[in-house]
């Protein structure tokens, strides 16, 4: 006799595996990307400070460059937010495909 609770438990296990594979990897990548971005920003600020000290750039040019780090951080954060939405969208579609597949296998 068909055990509905077993079926639901099987569905949940499958969805958990999908979440770990698809979203877990994305979280790791996003964290590393953020670290890389911060490191690059730090290097940029150090370089610009040296250029100002050497007199290679003016105070106004230096101020623009330093301020640009703020805008760059916003742009980066927006991109990451968008990438996360894309990943969630793909996860959602993968879950639906998985569930529909399971249900059809049950019926036919």
């Amino acid at each position, binding site marked *: 006799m068909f055990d*509905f609770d077993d079926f639901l438990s099987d569905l949940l296990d499958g969805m958990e595996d999908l979440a770990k594979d698809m979203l877990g990897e994305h979280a790791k990548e996003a964290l590393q990307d953020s670290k890389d971005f911060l490191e690059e920003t730090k290097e*940029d600020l150090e*370089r*610009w400070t040296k*250029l100002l000290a050497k007199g*290679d*750039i*003016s105070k*106004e*040019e*230096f101020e*623009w*460059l330093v*301020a*640009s*780090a*703020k*805008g*760059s951080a*916003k*742009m*980066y954060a*927006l*991109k990451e*937010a*968008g*990438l996360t*939405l*894309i990943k*969630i*969208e793909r996860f*959602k*579609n993968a879950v*639906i495909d998985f*569930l*529909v597949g399971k*249900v059809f296998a049950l019926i036919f």
Partner: protein
Amino acid sequence: MMTKVLRHSVIMLMLFASFCLIAGCKLIAEYNQVAYEYATSLKAEALALMEKASEPYADHEEDVEELMLEVEKAYEYANGLPKNEISAEQWKILKDKEGTLLGSFIELWKKEGQLSEISIVEAKEVVSKNFDQIIELEVARIR
């Protein structure tokens, strides 16, 4: 027993209906070729114009106005697409004259008259990377 079967059938139907509803709900706009072309072509045009910032602004004022008009068009296009708020916001930040990226670079050039070649090299790198944030997000939508 009949009640249990009926209950399970109702749950299955509700689950199926939910899948259909969720499948139709988009979280973010799909890939758009026009948006991609705006970003890639304006990146090249913006960087080429920034290169001229070592020359007097007055000599390039028309070119600046043309570029910023195109950037405005790109923003309006992005802003008009449904579920595309993130990309629209990126264009808005990029073009903002009172911000800290392309729009304000133009204002700096205008105010100072002309800029040092070293600062232009650095500023181009900044603007290039920020155009890449827009392009990368667009490309990521391709399935």
